[in-house]
């Protein structure tokens, strides 16, 4: 394999693998910027993947097909994701639960509930395969650019670009709009926000529900592009990787984007690497653990301290300090 071919394999794969992580990390960002730790991203992704597959299967059962099915599946996953995140929101905001505990509970609930429902619906522990998936395609025009075109724009998943675009949009929303300013203020100093007439708990609800929406989308994208069906093991650890990307990216949308792409790239390299002649003699285990070791090294070497929003993890109780 020449270098171009390796890049041609690795880069699209990195972007592809990063997409669900980017989306989910962005979700986590909304919640954590508002001051609510979200360890439940994993569970929210499960919910998204579940919803996307169930919706697609149901619509297919009704004889529908084509892009509209996929679009509907994505939209419904977003809705269900944000609805389901209310579990975390109610517990950690209104009921003042420990946010980590409630996130952990959400993860348990998501896996239990989805598989339970799948059993009820289909009388088995995993669904059938969907026939309407998200497929790769060439981006018109851009894919014709020499060198860059084949690497970044040909036979790519649309969802990857949507994810990247969303990261930029979220960056803009967080740092330039009144909503973003208020969201951040609530995560930094809720009492200050309160005295400025910002409804702290409402902002936090919005933050958590957005995290549900985005993580739901992330899970849906994963299911619709990669697995094509749903079972209890469809989402294993991706939510935690997204959380890591969020922290790695220092709670900045573009940072999270970069971190997710970094994970994707390391992952893709480690997989493809086993077939690169130069690396094929390296024991596979070294390539397998490389992405994780690289991440740790990157953190220790360059990234270092990551400081989250100041008021993160604490329920806001009016009048206390």
């Amino acid at each position, binding site marked *: 394999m020449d270098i171009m071919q390796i890049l041609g394999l690795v880069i699209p794969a990195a972007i592809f693998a990063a997409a669900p992580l980017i989306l989910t990390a962005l979700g986590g960002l909304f919640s954590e910027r508002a001051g609510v730790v979200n360890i439940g991203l994993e569970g929210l992704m499960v919910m998204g993947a579940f919803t996307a597959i169930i919706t697609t299967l149901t619509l297919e059962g009704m004889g529908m097909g084509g892009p509209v099915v996929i679009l509907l599946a994505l939209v419904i996953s977003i809705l269900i994701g944000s609805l389901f995140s209310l*579990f975390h929101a109610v*517990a*950690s905001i*209104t*009921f*003042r*639960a*420990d946010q*980590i*505990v*409630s996130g*952990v*509970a*959400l*993860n*348990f*609930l998501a*896996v*239990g*509930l989805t*598989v*339970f429902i799948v*059993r*009820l619906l289909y009388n088995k522990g995993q669904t059938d395969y969907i026939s309407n998936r998200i497929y790769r395609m060439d981006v018109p025009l851009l894919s014709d650019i020499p060198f860059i075109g084949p690497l970044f724009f040909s036979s790519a998943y649309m969802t990857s670009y949507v994810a990247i675009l969303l990261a930029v949009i979220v960056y803009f929303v967080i740092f330039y709009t009144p909503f973003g300013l208020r969201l951040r203020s609530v995560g930094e100093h809720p009492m200050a926000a309160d005295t400025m007439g910002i409804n702290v708990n409402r902002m936090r609800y919005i933050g958590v529900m957005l995290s549900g929406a985005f993580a739901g989308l992330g899970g849906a994208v994963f299911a619709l592009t990669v697995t094509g069906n749903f079972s*209890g*093991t469809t989402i*294993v*650890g991706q939510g*935690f*990787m997204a*959380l*890591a990307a969020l*922290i*790695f990216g220092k709670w900045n949308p573009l940072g999270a984007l970069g971190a997710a792409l970094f994970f994707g790239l390391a992952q893709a390299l480690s997989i493809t690497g086993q077939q690169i002649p130069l690396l094929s003699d390296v*024991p*596979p*285990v070294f390539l*397998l*653990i490389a992405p*994780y*070791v690289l*991440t*740790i090294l990157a*953190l*220790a070497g360059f*990234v*270092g*301290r*990551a400081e989250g929003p100041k008021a993160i993890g604490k329920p806001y109780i009016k009048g206390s300090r």
Partner: protein
Amino acid sequence: MSKLLPKGRLLSWSVPLIAVFLGIFIGAIIMLVSGYNPITGYSALVRGIFSDTYYLGETIRMMTPLILAGLAVAFAFRTGLLNIGVEGQLIVGWLASVYVGIAFDLPAVLHLPMAILAGALAGALWGFIPGLLKAKFQVHEVIVTIMMNYIALYTANAIIRSYLIVPGERTESINQSASLSSPFLQSLTDFSRLHWGFVVAILACVIMWFILWRTTKGYELRAVGLNQHASQYAGMNVQRNIILSMLISGGFAGVAGAMEGLGTYGYMSILSGFSGLGFDGIAVALLGANTAIGVVLASFLFGGLKIGALNMQSQAGVPTELVEIVIALIIFFVASSYIIRWVMNRVKKEDI
């Protein structure tokens, strides 16, 4: 004020009980809605925990690693660290203890402690790395521990595959001298896999309690967890305490792995994924309010429900996932105890 104390105590006990009740109650509604008979389901579940010494034995067996994983999370938590890496620490602890169990041939009095210690050391090493990075470079322990989990999983598999494999995709069985399993306990519980590990787990609880609440080191660890600046001001070495905390936490997790390796299984298989014990450990610790006693009780709840679920599946046909839902709900309600207290206070006020 002192008159109020017993009432306060009552309140603090009744809140988790109410939480458990609510979780079970909603579980019943879910069963009802989905066409199962909750009474049949739950009675099968309860029978699956208590009706037989076998089930009790299995429940205690299940509790053993849960307690240790829970202690690991709780211990780190007390120092202000979230150890998501219990899973990985448990895996390396499992491997190390099994290795010592296989590789040496010593009298049991030496061999067994050595094997457990090997597990503890391996887990401690795995906890040391995130601790060190946190202390020296302020790297967030959550990311590092997540990464260390994967490294542990793949490395352990590779080591087993390269050096320890026997047919059956696992390591050899450990020598009897390093084994925790006990024909006596098995015969007592009708061939459950109950092993002496539960003694280790209870001992670990006492150790955790003792370290944290009775020693100067524990005092330091708690101080650092609550206020790093004040701890530094008071002459404590904050960095060293962070590392130590992760070291001890990882040690507990490693012993949890040793319980699987030396007790339940007597070997280690190639793992096709995480055991889940590490994540259960987070829930157990938080449910148990990061106290030793709490962890034991939460482990009993978890272990019991999980073992009982098997019987619920086999006798009432209710999918075991229901138990996962119930567990999630219980965690939810325990975490939301504020609202339960609030309602109780409301009710009390109206009584007056």
